[in-house]
């Protein structure tokens, strides 16, 4: 029987086509002795410890493939990273696909391969999933939801309320690469070049930081809204402020170039493989040098310090100026104005 090279509405109809799609494209990639083998509705898992962390995230990105990644690895990294910054070792993922009728089967296969590769690299197992096909126009190619379960690293006692004046703010690498790479890849901008998304798992960075677990107070992956959103939100919650040093914030030169061209502040731009960590000052040099030895943390740096000035997120600029950092308003738009 000749297979369609595009996903059809019937692939989501629950009949033979659905069965074939799951058997040939999903099970072949993810079953490897795991609970997916028998296509159960739920996965039976052994309890990994006292406390677990459970997280979910949905992924929508245009274009589906971009320099340095695609929606598949993004969906793995996103949930792995949410677990990691919650202080957990990621173990299991669910994978739910919402596919627009007409999606190229070859593209779907590339993305599923990417999911597989990313989950193997991260050491997590896809244990349950779901596939739906919707009519053309009802979604933009492909949406993915992943949920994940991780084992809580007991020594971590994360909490914004533990943050104190004098604590250090660390970034694990260059910021904003993902958002700029995706924006540059959008149709119409005709921007090309060497810039790549930073999409990657950060759980090994978190696990390494666990050596200083007592000193670590906060970890977050700066996705939508970037560094400015992450820090802007926590200063709103707390009784402290943060001062950043512009020259200390690591940026990729290519990301800077795109941000200058499109008039976008890199502090507002998403990363998918970076972490912002706040710790007491004595632990900061150790964490930075430990991270710098890791492939994912080569660009790690202390970027600022917690102050007693409540609710103020301030940037000390290279030229000796100072300003407030705002939280982005939402949609990042290329501007010429």
């Amino acid at each position: 029987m000749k297979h369609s090279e595009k996903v059809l509405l019937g692939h989501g109809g629950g009949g033979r086509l659905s069965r074939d799609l799951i058997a040939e494209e999903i099970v072949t990639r993810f079953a490897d002795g795991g609970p997916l083998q028998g296509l159960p509705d739920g996965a039976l898992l052994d309890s990994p410890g006292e406390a677990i962390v459970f997280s979910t995230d949905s992924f929508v990105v245009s274009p589906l493939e971009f320099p340095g990644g695609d929606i598949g690895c993004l969906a793995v990294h996103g949930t792995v990273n949410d677990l990691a910054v919650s202080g957990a070792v990621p173990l299991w993922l669910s994978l739910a696909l919402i596919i627009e009728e007409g999606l190229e089967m070859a593209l779907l296969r590339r993305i599923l391969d990417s999911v597989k590769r990313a989950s193997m690299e991260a050491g997590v197992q896809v244990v349950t999933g779901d596939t739906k096909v919707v009519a053309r126009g009802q979604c933009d190619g492909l949406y993915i939801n992943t949920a994940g379960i991780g084992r809580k690293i007991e020594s971590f006692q994360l909490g914004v309320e533990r943050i104190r004046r004098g604590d250090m703010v660390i970034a694990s690498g260059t910021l904003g690469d993902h958002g700029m790479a995706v924006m540059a890849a959008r149709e119409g901008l005709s921007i090309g070049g060497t810039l790549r998304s930073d999409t990657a798992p950060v759980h090994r960075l978190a696990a390494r930081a666990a050596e200083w677990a007592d000193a670590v107070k906060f970890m977050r992956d700066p996705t939508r809204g970037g560094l400015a959103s992450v820090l802007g939100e926590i200063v709103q919650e707390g009784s402290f402020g943060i001062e950043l040093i512009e020259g200390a914030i690591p940026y990729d030169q290519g990301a800077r170039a795109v941000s200058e061209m499109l008039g976008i502040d890199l502090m507002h731009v998403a990363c998918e493989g970076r972490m912002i960590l706040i710790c007491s000052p004595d632990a900061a040099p150790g964490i930075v040098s430990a991270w710098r030895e890791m492939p994912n943390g080569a660009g790690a740096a202390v970027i600022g310090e917690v102050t007693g000035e409540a609710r103020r997120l301030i940037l000390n600029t290279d030229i000796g100026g100072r300003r407030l950092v705002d939280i982005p308003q939402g949609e990042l738009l290329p501007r010429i104005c």
Partner: protein
Amino acid sequence: MCLAVPMRIKEMGEGGTGVCELEGVTCQVDLSLVEDPGVDDFVIVHAGFAIEKLDREEADSRLRLFQELAEMRGKIPSDQ
């Protein structure tokens, strides 16, 4: 409203266009508004158009001035 960045012309293309480059990032740019554009010229790119050439001699001499200012300032403490 006049966000524009200096970019180097990397390749000349058809119909008055070219590929411009900044830190490895390339962009299709309309070069029809600048006189006699050529590869390795620096142009000021605004909304996908080169609106003027960058005079590198002028730019470099200004950068040298900044360098001198920075060095002079750096020397003050040691001179005292």
